[in-house]
């Protein structure tokens, strides 16, 4: 699509375009290029300032920070909690998002599908603090019963070993809230890649007598696979960095456990920062900033990989769109 809709409006700056020598043009080019470079500078600044303020926290001795631990043993449970909650959220959200995208693209009339797509996008407009409020005051209470049931019936699995939390504010609840929060972006990207499926292939499959599901399975899903992977990774990036919902929903105690429903839960990096930052002072602040740097590196890597996958897809499908 990008090939056809942008008939190279932008020649490069060295050519003798209209009036390229004029002062006004050179000034304007300078300003706009300066803005682009500023953005790069901001991104570099994020890395530089976090590193500069974080290094004292990494090298601080255990008795100088509030946690009383060296930096690796302070950050490791948090990294585990961050990855664990985000993975759980992804496991819940991705199948749901793909199904929702299929539903609005292939199972309802086109106009209705668009309207329903807007409704799903509405979820993305809800501020994260409202998600937190809802997860903590509404969802957690609703899940106490199911958690007790899970402990009784599936207690032999390490995930549901219990004892089940009496408040419902567990890592699984946090993961459900995270899943709801990343659902819109994963759905939006899945819809986008499904929309790019060549309609001729779809019609050919149907003409050969395929049922709707067989058409989706043989044409749509293989065509959209890398796009869906990229969308899932973008969702992962969001879930890794989400702060308020986890901070408000989870009652964390900083342990490493696979138990999903007990009242002792691993915390996550962003939630830990949000909860500790305002009471912290001295090198504890630096340690928190250093944990933020770790989070930045993780999310940057995930987003980098996701964008690479999604962009490759875009160029690839653009060739025969």
């Amino acid at each position: 699509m990008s090939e056809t809709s942008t008939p190279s409006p932008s020649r490069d700056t060295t050519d003798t375009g209209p009036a390229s020598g004029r002062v006004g043009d050179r000034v304007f080019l300078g300003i706009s290029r300066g803005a682009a470079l500023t953005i790069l500078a901001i991104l570099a600044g994020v890395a530089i300032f976090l590193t500069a303020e974080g290094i004292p926290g990494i090298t601080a001795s255990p008795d100088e920070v509030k946690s009383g631990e060296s930096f690796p043993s302070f950050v490791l449970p948090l990294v585990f909690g961050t990855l664990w909650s985000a993975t759980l959220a992804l496991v819940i959200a991705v199948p749901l998002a793909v199904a929702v995208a299929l539903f609005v693209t292939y199972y309802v009339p086109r106009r209705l599908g668009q309207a329903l797509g807007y409704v799903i996008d509405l979820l993305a407009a809800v501020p994260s603090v409202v998600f937190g409020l809802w997860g903590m005051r509404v969802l957690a209470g609703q899940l106490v019963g199911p958690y007790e049931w899970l402990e009784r019936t599936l207690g032999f699995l390490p995930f549901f070993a219990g004892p089940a939390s009496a408040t419902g504010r567990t890592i699984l609840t946090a993961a459900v809230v995270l899943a709801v929060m990343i659902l819109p972006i994963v759905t939006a990207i899945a819809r986008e890649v499904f929309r790019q499926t060549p309609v001729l292939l779809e019609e050919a499959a149907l003409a050969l007598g395929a049922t709707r599901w067989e058409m989706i399975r043989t044409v749509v899903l293989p065509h959209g696979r890398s796009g869906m992977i990229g969308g899932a990774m973008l969702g992962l990036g969001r879930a890794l960095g989400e702060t308020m919902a986890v901070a408000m929903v989870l009652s964390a105690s900083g342990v490493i456990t696979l138990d999903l429903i007990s009242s002792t839960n691993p915390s996550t990096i962003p939630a830990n920062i949000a909860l500790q930052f305002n009471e912290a002072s001295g090198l504890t602040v630096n340690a928190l900033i250093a944990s933020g740097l770790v989070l930045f590196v993780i999310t940057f890597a995930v987003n980098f990989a996701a964008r690479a996958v999604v962009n490759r897809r875009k160029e690839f499908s653009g060739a025969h769109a």
Partner: protein
Amino acid sequence: MSTRNRSGDTLAPPPAPQRDEAALALRGWHQPRLPRGAGWYAAALAVVVASALQAGLGLPLLPSLLTGWAVLGIGLPSLSRAVEGRRKAVDRLVSIMVSSAFVLAMVPLVSILWTVVKNGLPVLSSEFFTYSMRNVVGEGGGIYHAVWGTVLITAAAAVMSVPLGLLTAIFLVEYGGDGRLAKVVRFLVDVMTGIPSIVAGLFAYALFVVFFGPGVRMGIAGAVALTVLMTPVVVRSSEEMLQLVPHELREAAYALGVPRWRTIVKVVLPTSMAGLVTGVTLAVARVIGETAPLLITVGITDSSNFTLFDGRMATLPVFTYSSIMSPGVPPEPSIARAWGAALVLMLIVMVLNLVARLVTYFFSPKGKR
């Protein structure tokens, strides 16, 4: 592209042929079918079963719903398998799964909207909007200071990020082309959209610590954090809008001898103005609900503070957060205020989204999208 035809206009198969001897003789290519609308009948039956279990037998809501769903999800495919064969049965099963997934995804949205409106609406009063929390213990007080803090900080963020983002988009579309710098910027802007909001907050804090010393809290730091989050959104949306401007318009201007920068200012920007406004509005809507960066850079206070450069300010999201997390004694009034602030915040975000859509609808050039 917009005229693509979608299959999927009917949930039910064509009407069943008569099952007389002739049709049976032709079996193999005249497979018997379930009657038209079988899916809807099954769904209705599932609803009946679920409500009967819940209301009639007094079972809890969740098991009744699951049983009702099982009636639909297992019953219809089994029936279909017996009558129509395996392929149709799988198709029906998937249809049910996919539709259920959509309903399931709607549950949290409806639940959130419902609880926020139910708990927030009783709180809204003229006092709630015109009082700050200064010297308020227990009942009373309001969000006056928080609304102003949110408006000021978001406005400051917009003042910084809109020119930056717009100029970058102009560079990418009008000058950069497929050059190396443009490619790098485009990719990194994409990656930048994924920066966690708390990291943006930490960055702003680390930046201001250098100038103001440890423990710094001020509105402008929050605005810087929001700028980091908002700029990539502005760049992406503006870039898309500028690319929609037909190249013929630019060429017409060049042919008249208009310099390139005048072409951009007088032709390209006015043409895409509606789209640009929409993009900026959506970007504002996205950052106005950000809590984490403001929590660690701006903090919270009970009094009104209209100065971005002088100490803590209250903002709506942080006000909501701190009202619920440290409600004080007695907790009820504070929790009620948290719901009220959450409702106001959501209304602001919804209105901004609506405005953005209306701008696109009324002011975009006709015949586009």
